[in-house]
């Protein structure tokens, strides 16, 4: 069994079926690019992975164990969902940084709140917070913003904000990091700096799922490509095949062709 698997995920909104039975497999340390036209269900799929939507049907496996089964969704408490969610990180299209906190505080807030639930928190508060802050500083450096820790989000460019958002997601040490069109809200020149961060994460073997419209980037960084069309998986395979001339899916060939023009 692969590191991460989705089996038969279905999701409807008000009688419109958005996901019509999706299967995904992803090995540890690999990058999966999800591509497809608007309304094909890419974002909904990513939101299901992050428990922002609850699938109507389907199962999710992580690291060999069943993480979620839609048949038992009623019995899940908020706390359980919260714990399951921590396996995944999410980077949004429009960053969603917390405006009243500095970049550094954005990174530290959630880890510190989570640390309060640890049984040894009271005795080791200083050490635990110190560790979190050190990690946050390291992550800001990793995304090239070591100097910007004290800036508020409004003082940063879109590309910088998105890099802070990536660092913030990494601060929770997720098993899989998800990106929902991370560069769609950015100018082309700012897109580059965000994509560079993604490249370096791929080199470090971070397991990632990226919903993107950047075809060149997807073909360069992704190990696997999932092409979604109208709620179905139309193509699922190696990115070399997906973007190669011998791609078995006519629709994917057309899609890639139409975007490159």
């Amino acid at each position, binding site marked *: 069994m692969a590191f991460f698997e989705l089996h038969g995920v279905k999701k409807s909104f008000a009688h419109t079926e958005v996901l019509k039975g999706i299967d995904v497999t992803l090995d540890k340390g690999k990058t999966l690019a999800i591509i497809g036209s608007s309304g094909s269900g890419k974002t909904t799929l990513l939101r299901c992975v*992050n*428990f*922002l939507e609850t699938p109507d049907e389907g199962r999710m496996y992580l690291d060999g164990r069943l993480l979620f089964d839609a048949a038992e969704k009623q019995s899940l408490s*908020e706390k359980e969902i*919260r*714990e399951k*969610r*921590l396996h*995944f*990180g*999410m980077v*949004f299209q*429009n960053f*969603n*940084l*917390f*405006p*009243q*906190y500095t970049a550094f505080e954005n990174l530290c*807030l*959630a880890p510190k*709140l*989570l640390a309060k639930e640890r049984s040894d928190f009271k005795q080791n508060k200083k050490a635990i917070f110190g560790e979190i802050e050190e990690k946050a500083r390291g992550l800001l450096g990793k995304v090239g913003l070591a100097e910007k820790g004290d800036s*508020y*989000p*409004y003082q940063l460019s879109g590309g910088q904000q998105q890099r802070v958002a990536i660092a*913030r*997601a990494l601060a*929770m040490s997720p098993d899989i990091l998800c990106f929902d069109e991370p560069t769609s809200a950015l100018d082309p020149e700012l897109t580059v700096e965000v994509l560079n961060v993604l490249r370096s994460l791929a080199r470090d073997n971070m397991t990632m799922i990226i919903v993107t419209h950047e075809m060149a980037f997807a073909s360069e960084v992704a190990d696997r490509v999932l092409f979604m069309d109208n709620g179905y998986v139309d193509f699922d395979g190696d990115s070399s095949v997906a973007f190669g001339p011998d791609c078995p899916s006519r629709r994917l060939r057309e899609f890639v062709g139409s975007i490159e023009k």
Partner: protein
Amino acid sequence: MSFWDITLFLLKGFRISCLIFIVTLVIGIPLGMPIAICSMSRFKPLKAVSKVIVWIVRGVPLMLQIFIIFYVPGLVFNYQLFGSIDKYLLLNYGIEDSGRILAVLIAFALNYACYFSEIYRGGIESISKGQYEAGQVLGMTKGQIFFRVVLLQVVKRIVPPMSNEIITLIKDTALANCIMVAEIIKQANTLAATKALIWPLFYAGAFYLIFVGLLTVLLGMAEKKLSYFEN
């Protein structure tokens, strides 16, 4: 009457204006929160009840609400609640108008709580869904998301409309006049009617102006304090 006498006479009234102002804020600001929460509730009956109350309270003149609250106990239940309090405190402690002031305070607190609730609701609903979702994917609880992420952003957004209401409130206190509470305008009017003096009316206006000036400075400081971030 000397200038000093008239100042004291007006101050006696302005004390009551300030009392109404402060008590209305102390009760109305927190009371607006549960009303706002009910108005946003997914439980339909609760939402409906709260919306109807807000509609009535905001839809009917405050003066009428003061009359109704003051007269209903006596004229409907045949027990002059506020009149009895008036008499009791006057005879035993020499405090004037206490029952009437109580009726005014009830009307004001309820009325302003409803206005505040709508400001809170607008503020809370203006925060983007993305802020909640960002908190969720970082493993935060609903309470943590509200208190650590959303609340301060809401406060920042509601300071300007709240400032407006608060400034309106000090001037609305003059409505207590309608059930003969001796607030500052009633005092000034008494001077005009009994001593044929016009200037105390202008003098009373100066009290309001100074008060509103101070409020404007204070509320401006609050706004400035929250200007370190943008949302």
